[in-house]
């Protein structure tokens, strides 16, 4: 099995290296990329899409297929982590840990012992003990909502400033990861459960592809956002601009969910019961 995998990887590498010979030479000024494509983007991007940030226009509009499959690759990375690491059979734990909220005392309940109800007084924590740290927890509480707002700002302002779906999604995922670091994995999973993360990761790609498909339904070609102007009362240029925004949101949802998902699986070695 291993030899088959190795051989296929080696063959693929050989094919890829062989195909690089067809590329234009490094820095070739006569290559197609530098003769007309770049100039076209630089001259016409603002008129075509009403997006002042060229990178966003190229990324989400002119090269929409590329970004669509990049997002899919991110989703596949999350799936790969899930299938490689996740252990579906829960271990029989020897004990459960509870923390008394007011005093910070940790209780160890051996198997069969009387368990406190998970309520006002006690909260269940990970079965491998994570040191409770008041300062880190409180400081992250102060910071997290503003970081989430900042992430949404980065997503929404991809048209004007650096940023967009990938960056904003990463920051948003990082806030949830910060929550998991500051408390424990259990309290982060209380907000964004694994199932929700998986759903969001798929939904992000679906939003992207769905916008593309909607363009076909409205008579354009796949990912040609100007077709959206028939559905809403936009001019074709503004339709392209808003289409880019929708696509960015899809990318952001997928990327943030995959970040969280990968973190859950990596930090707990697939058991989802003990965080970092």
């Amino acid at each position, binding site marked *: 099995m291993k030899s088959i995998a190795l051989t296929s990887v080696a063959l693929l590498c050989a094919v890829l290296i062989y195909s690089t010979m067809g590329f234009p030479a490094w820095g070739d000024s006569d290559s197609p990329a530098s003769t007309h494509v770049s100039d076209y983007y630089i001259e016409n991007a603002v008129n075509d899409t009403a997006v002042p940030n060229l990178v966003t226009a190229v990324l989400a509009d002119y090269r929409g297929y590329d970004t669509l499959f990049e997002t899919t690759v991110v989703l596949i990375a999350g799936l790969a982590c899930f299938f490689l690491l996740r252990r579906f059979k829960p271990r029989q734990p020897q004990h459960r840990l509870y923390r008394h*909220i007011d005093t910070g005392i940790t209780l160890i309940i051996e198997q069969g012992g009387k368990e406190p109800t998970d309520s006002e007084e006690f909260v269940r924590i990970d079965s491998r003990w994570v040191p409770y740290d008041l300062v880190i927890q*409180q400081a992250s509480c102060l910071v997290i909502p503003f970081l989430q707002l*900042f992430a949404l700002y980065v997503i929404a*302002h991809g048209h*004007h400033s650096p940023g967009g779906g990938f960056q904003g999604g990463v920051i948003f995922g990082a806030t949830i990861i910060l929550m998991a670091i500051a408390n424990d994995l259990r309290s982060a999973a*209380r907000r964004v459960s694994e199932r929700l993360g998986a759903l969001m990761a798929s939904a992000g790609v679906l939003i992207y592809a769905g916008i593309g498909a909607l363009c076909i339904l409205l008579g354009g070609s796949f990912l040609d956002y100007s077709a959206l102007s028939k559905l809403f009362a936009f001019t074709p240029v503004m339709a392209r601009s808003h289409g880019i925004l929708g696509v960015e949101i899809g990318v952001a949802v997928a990327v943030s969910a995959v970040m969280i998902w990968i973190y859950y699986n990596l930090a707990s070695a697939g058991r989802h019961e003990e965080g970092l």
Partner: protein
Amino acid sequence: MAPPVNVFSEEKPGDNEKAPNHRGSQPRFGARVLTFLVCFATWIVLSGRFDLFHLALGVIASCIVSTISADILFPVHEFRQLPKMFARFILYLPWLLYKVFQANLNVLYLSFHPRMRERIDPQIITFQSKIKGNMALLIFANSITLTPGTVTVHVSVLGKYTVHAIDAKSAEALPGKMERKVEKIFE
């Protein structure tokens, strides 16, 4: 021998929403509104665009944040106290800044001093403070870290501080005046 109980049986991943949450997880309406307002103000500073489209995006983003994490930002139950606390905290800041400045000059002097190792005498001290409330504990801990010669090593929930002090003089200064000042903010 009793059969082993599967303690995870009630904790399937999808069940998390139904699991009883701990204290402060049910944000009140006031917390949501307050979070929304704070978020929208931050959005305006961040965005810097005042056309209708971007403001609408701001409203949507603030709504999202206030639904996701209102209980994180304002777990306090007494909302009447909040503006007063905030005002007192703003009044506390200049004094803190002055102390921070003093601390920095102190450390700056130490780090350029040629025989620095003779001037410092690191030690770890513990003391019990009278401060109650998580946010007050956080503010006091971070103030200790920022002010002369001391770094907070550990804080327990009940207010027992473990502090690394760089010399005996700064170790003696704790808890001192700062504790009273922080206590005053949250009374």
